[in-house]
């Protein structure tokens, strides 16, 4: 095993090793030394209460920004910019990597794009199909007919299967499409500096002001090429039709992204995002053999610019589909796989740390801070629900008579109860905020659904138990044992799968 491979394997083992180490140690401590275990659990409970309150406050702030900014007339703001900012020259390359989504998913995405309040002639739209998808050519033909004339340029690309060095990932397809678009851009003599590339999931519907907002931030940013631009993902396309379980999970995901947008030092691109095309070309596009291409592209930029690369939050939403299926069990499986794919973002850790080791221009403090943030977020993801929902009760269970007569055994459930109460309180805030980001209730959907939307939050503890930590443990364990995941696209269901 050469040195690089050895290092990679060590780094792949660290997150899962840490998570399992914490879980096993706490279980053993609960049996062998319940007092110590109880002290650790109470510390974690207290940390979690403070963390929940802190993050909920951030959510309120982020939500406030979203409410304030999403309805701004960004296009008008762009028009007011001085001419030398180059608004008129700015082009938008929009790539939709398509796996096997059909017209019922792709049409709304393109419709929303064509409804943008922006200069459509400055759009270069690329529908990036997979060649192995039998229906790709016919779908591409239909869409070209319908939308080809609505934008400045419209391309359909077909990513060949099994290219050397590639995995079957979204990033490989997007990269193929971006390279095809580069040929077009170069042939038209468009400077890369004047192109912003947006890589959207196939079901992404943008708000009319999205490109105005993006352009404004790009043109007014300091070092615009050294930034990615992250809209707030919401799952509104089919939220009124989706079952409670799936809806809650996706609303929580949106909220997590809103919270992250307030923590700029940790903020990383996720799902649909935009960036400078010049930068994309310079950092050699998205990774073609990694599943978490959306976040890796940020780290590539970060390493390329020696740490001087950031994510600019755009407080405007892009709407996607809630992933669900025909029954609750299948929906759970779909959601579990989606969360596991997100948790596979842990593959960033070996990528980033390896990059840090090779890069001598980023300060050690920054390297340590970013590595710690990355590791801590994944390890916390993998252990929090296990500790709060399971291990927290073990000291009382295994403690025996002696422990159970102690004050700490008596106080442990009380402090856990306090945690539960604070969770209920924050849940009320989450319920209220979730209402405010909902799209209008479609015709044909009963008003009773409003009541359901509130009551369904009672399922949160169940969801935490099922989807809280297990997808992250699963992903980290696979990475530990080098059982690398294949890209498993989420079944998109604004038209039930």
């Amino acid at each position, binding site marked *: 095993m050469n040195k690089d491979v050895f290092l990679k394997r060590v780094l792949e083992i660290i997150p899962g090793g840490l998570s399992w180490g914490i879980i096993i140690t706490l279980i053993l401590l609960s049996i062998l030394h319940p007092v110590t275990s109880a*002290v650790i659990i109470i*510390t974690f409970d207290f940390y979690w209460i*403070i963390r929940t309150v*802190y993050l909920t406050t951030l959510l309120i702030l982020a939500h406030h920004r979203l409410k304030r900014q999403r309805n701004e007339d960004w296009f008008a703001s762009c028009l007011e910019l001085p001419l030398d900012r180059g608004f008129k020259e700015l082009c938008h390359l929009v790539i939709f990597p398509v796996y096997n989504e059909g017209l019922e998913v792709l049409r709304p995405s393109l419709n929303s794009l064509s409804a943008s309040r922006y200069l459509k002639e400055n759009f270069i739209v690329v529908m990036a199909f997979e060649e192995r998808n039998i229906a790709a050519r016919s779908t591409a033909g239909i869409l070209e007919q319908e939308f080809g004339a609505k934008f400045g340029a419209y391309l359909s690309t077909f990513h060949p299967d099994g290219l050397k060095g590639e995995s079957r990932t979204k990033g490989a397809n997007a990269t193929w499409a971006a390279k095809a678009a580069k040929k077009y851009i170069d042939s038209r003599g468009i400077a890369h500096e004047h192109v912003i590339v947006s890589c959207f999931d196939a079901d992404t519907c943008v708000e009319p002001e999205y490109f105005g907002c993006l352009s404004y931030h790009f043109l007014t940013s300091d070092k615009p090429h050294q930034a990615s631009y992250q809209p707030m993902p919401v799952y509104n396309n089919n939220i009124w039709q989706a079952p409670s379980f799936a809806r809650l999970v996706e609303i929580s995901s949106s909220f997590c992204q809103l919270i992250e947008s*307030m923590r700029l030092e940790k903020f990383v691109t996720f799902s649909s995002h935009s960036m400078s095309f010049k930068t994309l070309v310079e950092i050699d596009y998205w990774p073609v053999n990694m599943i978490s291409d959306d976040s890796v592209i940020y780290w590539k930029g970060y390493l390329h610019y020696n740490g001087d690369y950031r994510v600019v939050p755009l407080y405007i939403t892009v709407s996607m589909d809630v992933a669900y299926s025909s029954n609750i069990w299948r929906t759970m499986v779909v959601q579990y796989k989606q969360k596991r794919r997100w948790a596979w973002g842990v593959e960033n850790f070996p990528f980033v740390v390896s990059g840090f080791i090779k890069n001598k221009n980023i300060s050690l403090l920054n390297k340590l801070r970013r590595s710690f943030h990355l590791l801590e977020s994944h390890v916390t993801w993998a252990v929090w629900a296990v500790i709060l929902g399971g291990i927290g009760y073990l000291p009382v269970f295994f403690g025996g008579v002696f422990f159970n*007569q102690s004050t700490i055994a008596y106080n442990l459930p009380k402090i856990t109860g306090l945690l539960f109460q604070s969770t209920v309180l924050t849940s009320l805030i989450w319920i209220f905020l979730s209402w405010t980001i909902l799209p209008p209730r479609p015709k044909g959907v009963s008003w009773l659904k409003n009541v359901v939307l509130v009551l369904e939050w009672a399922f949160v503890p169940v969801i935490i138990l099922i989807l809280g930590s297990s997808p992250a443990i699963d992903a980290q364990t696979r990475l530990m044992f080098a059982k690398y995941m294949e890209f498993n696209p989420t079944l998109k269901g604004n038209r039930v799968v």
Partner: protein
Amino acid sequence: MLNFQKIRSSLFYFSVFLFFIGLPFILAFALGYKFNARTLRFSKTGLIYIKTQPDGAKIYLNGKLMPARSPASITELVPGVYKIALELAQHYPWRGEIDVEAGKASRFDKIILFPLRPDLAQLNQERFSSFRIDTEKRAVYYLDQENKVVYKSNLDGGNFEDIAGLPDKFAQITGWDISADKKKMFIFNNHQIGVIFFDTGSDHDYSDSPVLLDYSQEKIINVFWHSDSYHLIVLTNKYVQVVESRPRALPINLVKLNKEEAPAFYDAKEDALYFSDSQRSPNGSIYNNLYKLELNSDLYLLGILMTQPFHALNLKGKEGLGE
């Protein structure tokens, strides 16, 4: 315009501050330590948890009324002996002492405060000499030996009615019990067993009149119903027997007893008789053995009845007998 990053930073550092300041107090509280603001030191304490039934009792600790009512925990107690009094209106007070240890939770969670006026109700409407409670059917059976009547009521005393009469010549009843099917009962004295039927419309070919079984040569010690509600297990001063509850039924001697009054228990669920009997050791001393006689098969009993008196029973460790 709000500077969100400044607000966020302030929030973050405030949270970190809160965590590190609050954590020692939370852990100290959890571990039973009390912070003394004067000395700025933590001292280890204990707690008492009190739960009563019913709730809401006033709690006096060393004579001092506590603000909380039961269920409640009194925390941060300096180790030592405490006197506790619990008072609830219209209930007997409860008093006790507890030794509070450092770092320990002393629990009083099984206290029942009994009402001053117990919820007492008379169930019988007639005189009686003994009774049986059937919790399964929620019924009470009363036996009036003097007037030779059997009464029945529900557990609240309702539906009180006489359900059978006792045979006139049956003197000095020493024991009785109701059958599992609740359709009949047996009574016995030293030399007679009587089976009295409550229900004449039974499935079996029972007689309406009592069945009387005479034991003139033996003394009856105890009688039990078999779960089939038809056979009786009889312990006399000589044998363990089984006999059908029909006129002129002949008992079968299952086991010969050495002891005249062998103590016994009958498990009606398993149809097993547990009894003790004495045995003489080779050195002449007498000691007791406890035996279990399984009677849990109807076929077993049927087999005995059909083959007796030709076959002898073999009991492990004890000689079985035919009649």
